[in-house]
């Protein structure tokens, strides 16, 4: 077996997310690659939370139904997930709270008490036992825990040690490929945050909203180090307008939210289009409509992102599938937004943003500097420039007046209503869109995986890429995935789809939004496999569904 799947479950407040991330880092610490899915309802204490970690020699990006180990802090975990254990799998559990199970039982209350550790370290008992079961050397466990546990490290280590000692070696981890380095582990939201910072973010403005909030928290905690001001104002309308004020005054800013908050930003978003102000919006999807299922995932906002705001204006929209892409494209969107002076959207979702993965490093982006005014003559904010792009100067610059305007305006930024100027300025904005599409030809805007020569092609976008790619590998299919959704990468997409017979869209929504987009761009889609219950596809699940539609 070259992979392992571990589930840890318990109540909200019992540290399931942390425990899961520790398991990821233990597996990574052994030179393997890992992916974690974290499942929790919208409540603070109680209920049922669980994390599933898949470790493998090659980087996993999705999950299977089958599990090898279930670490149970409570009976509910066993009740819900035991059935997923595959042959040879086992349960590690708290004897004080779980009855009627075979496996490795640990009296966690007693252990914690004996070690004088806080109750929340119970999870470490299970983790210790897991490490032993998987034959992870104690030194590795200690090193990882010292790094990964946020507080009370000694207590955590002691409890882990007790678990370690109580368990038996049983199911060693897969053997990593020789020389497999230990990779760092990040959540998707951390990759977004770091990608923004690396690309020169000077301000991050957000109002808390799941599943985007952890970007806010991560950046707030490190704002001094990063030199990025983090601003949490009274609501999303303010978020957007403050961002535009800051962009006008010369700073690189991004905002983050989910669908409901994005609704409130749409008026400002359209303003950005008209005033030609750059901003990057991280739009983290969850199942809608409205409040929906706030701690779960979905892909229901693609068409909304593509057309949000009144009127027509260019807007780069990209949907990354992995940490590496998230990092890369946040930077790329900052570059594009500032080069073309227009708002951009990074479409992510809960599964990517709150999932954790080992991180392989992001590729370098092509250089794309913004167009600065050369200081010659009278400054006009909307003066004609290359590709419809007007050279930028910041307010405060000596001898310069910078006027931006939400009305249709002339080259100086003064309101106009006459036919000729209205049409001319509309064409200027359109020109930027065309130029942007050209520039994007030099980016990995469409990604093909699976068998690039296969007749049947799966179409997907964003975080479903992983499961599609694995299913395609099993079934001998091709996967074509536009990362850039606007301006649509027509040529790259057509090339990627060349020779495909059957085309099947796989999306976490009802309506087949990518399928609609692709059809609007003149391509055929034959079938659609949708999921809209907030949970990601299992590989088995997707393969079954694909066979049903004749893949």
């Amino acid at each position, binding site marked *: 077996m070259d992979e392992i799947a571990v589930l840890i479950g318990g109540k909200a407040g019992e540290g399931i997310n942390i425990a899961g991330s520790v398991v990821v880092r233990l597996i*990574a*610490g052994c030179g393997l690659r890992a992916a974690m899915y974290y499942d929790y309802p919208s409540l603070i204490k109680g209920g049922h939370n669980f994390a599933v970690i898949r470790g493998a020699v090659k980087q996993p990006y999705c999950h299977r139904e089958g599990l090898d180990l279930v670490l149970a802090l409570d009976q509910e975990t066993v009740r819900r997930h035991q059935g997923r254990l595959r042959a040879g799998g086992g349960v590690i559990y708290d004897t004080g709270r779980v009855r009627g199970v075979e496996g490795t039982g640990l009296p966690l209350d007693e252990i914690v008490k004996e070690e004088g550790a806080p109750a929340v370290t119970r999870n470490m008992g299970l983790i210790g036992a897991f490490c032993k079961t998987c034959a992870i050397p104690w030194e590795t466990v200690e090193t990882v825990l010292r*790094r990964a546990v946020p507080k009370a490290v000694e207590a955590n280590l002691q409890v882990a040690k007790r678990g370690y000692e109580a368990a038996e070696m049983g199911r060693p981890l897969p053997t990593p490929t020789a020389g497999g380095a*230990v*990779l*760092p*582990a*990040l959540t998707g939201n951390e990759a977004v945050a*770091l990608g923004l*910072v*690396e690309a*020169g973010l*000077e*301000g991050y*403005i957000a109002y808390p909203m799941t599943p985007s909030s952890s970007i806010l928290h991560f950046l707030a905690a490190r*704002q001094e*180090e*990063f*030199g*990025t*001001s*983090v*601003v949490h*104002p*009274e*609501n999303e*309308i*303010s978020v*957007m*307008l*403050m961002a535009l*004020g*800051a*962009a*006008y*005054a*010369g*700073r690189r*800013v991004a905002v983050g939210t989910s669908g409901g908050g994005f609704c409130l930003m749409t008026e*400002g978003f359209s*303003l950005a289009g008209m*005033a030609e102000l750059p901003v990057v919006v991280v739009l983290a999807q969850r199942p809608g409509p409205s409040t929906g299922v706030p701690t779960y995932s979905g892909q229901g906002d693609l068409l909304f992102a593509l057309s949000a705001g009144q009127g027509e204006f260019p807007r780069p929209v990209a949907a990354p599938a992995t940490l590496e892409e998230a990092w890369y494209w946040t930077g790329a969107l900052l570059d594009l937004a500032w080069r073309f002076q227009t708002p951009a959207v990074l479409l992510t979702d809960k599964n990517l943003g709150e999932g954790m993965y080992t*991180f392989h490093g992001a590729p370098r982006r092509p250089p794309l500097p913004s167009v600065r005014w050369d200081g010659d003559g009278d400054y006009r904010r909307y003066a004609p420039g290359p590709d419809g792009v007007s050279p930028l100067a910041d*307010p*405060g*610059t*000596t*001898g310069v*007046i*910078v*006027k*931006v*305007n*939400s*009305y249709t*305006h002339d080259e*100086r*930024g*003064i*309101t106009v209503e006459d036919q000729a100027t209205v049409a001319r300025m509309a064409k200027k904005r359109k020109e930027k869109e065309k130029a942007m599409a050209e520039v994007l030809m030099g980016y990995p805007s469409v990604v093909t995986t699976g068998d690039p020569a296969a007749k049947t092609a799966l179409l997907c976008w964003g975080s479903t890429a992983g499961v599609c790619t694995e299913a395609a590998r099993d079934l001998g299919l091709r996967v074509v995935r536009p990362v850039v959704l606007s301006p649509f990468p027509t040529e790259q997409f057509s090339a990627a789809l060349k020779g495909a017979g059957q085309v099947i869209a796989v999306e976490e929504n009802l309506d087949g939004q990518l399928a609609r987009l692709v059809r609007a761009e003149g391509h055929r889609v034959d079938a659609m496999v949708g999921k809209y219950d907030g949970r990601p596809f299992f590989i088995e699940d997707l393969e079954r569904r694909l066979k049903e539609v004749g893949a």
Partner: protein
Amino acid sequence: MTWITDAQNTWCPGCGNFAVQHALKDVFSGLVADEGRRPEEFVLVSGIGCHAKIADYLAVNSFYAIHGRTLPVATGIKLANPDLTAVACAGDGDAYAEGLGHLVFAAKRNTDITAIVHDNRVYGLTTGQYTPTSYTGFKGRSTPAGVKERPFNPVELALASGATFVARAYTRRLDHLREVLRRAILHQGFSFVEVLQICATYNNLTGTYHDQVYELEGHDTADLTAALARAREWDYSDDAPIALGVFYESERDHETWPAMGRVPDHRRQEVIRGVLEERR
């Protein structure tokens, strides 16, 4: 330095907005002349409405924004570059209806912005509907039988929200208006100036104001209770005396968030590498 653009002015004859424009122009040029300010440091943010056309007319940096949102824009500008002097010109529909919440928050944070509300007590540009400061009984196009609500008192509200400079002026008292605007801009922290502005077309209250306004004298601007009492003298509907002048002025910290700055790129790269190391 010319302070007025060559954009065609389209305000109605007799409109009070002319007074605000001239007063602002004079204050800006005065600050350049006697305080050594740079003309390029002024940034005007406007909403949408008749008042907002001032962004086209004054030859200074400007952000002609959207209805109701001058204050978040101005806040963003100050966060980005605290050296700029941000003046937000809003309408009463703008500041008191569509975007009221922002006013309370700008006051709470004491952000260093001057908010000027061109309060003509009517939606001018959309041809005459009632606003939150229209008097009870005002017959607007959405309330042809007369407004039933009582207006609210923006001066009182600004005081309750924690603004550190609160004043009222009137467009037919140009010298006084000019003086108040100058003090407001010089004040460090959030300055709120309610300007009673004549709308010649939809709500010409010249008579009312002529009879009722007076300039505050001997008023202690450091006394919040006295300020509140003065603010409540007139309720925006009755025929009580209408005080003009500075109601309140005080000092308070105004740095809610760190100003945006930039760590050198190589330093950022190091920090990022450090984070990745921690995550191994």
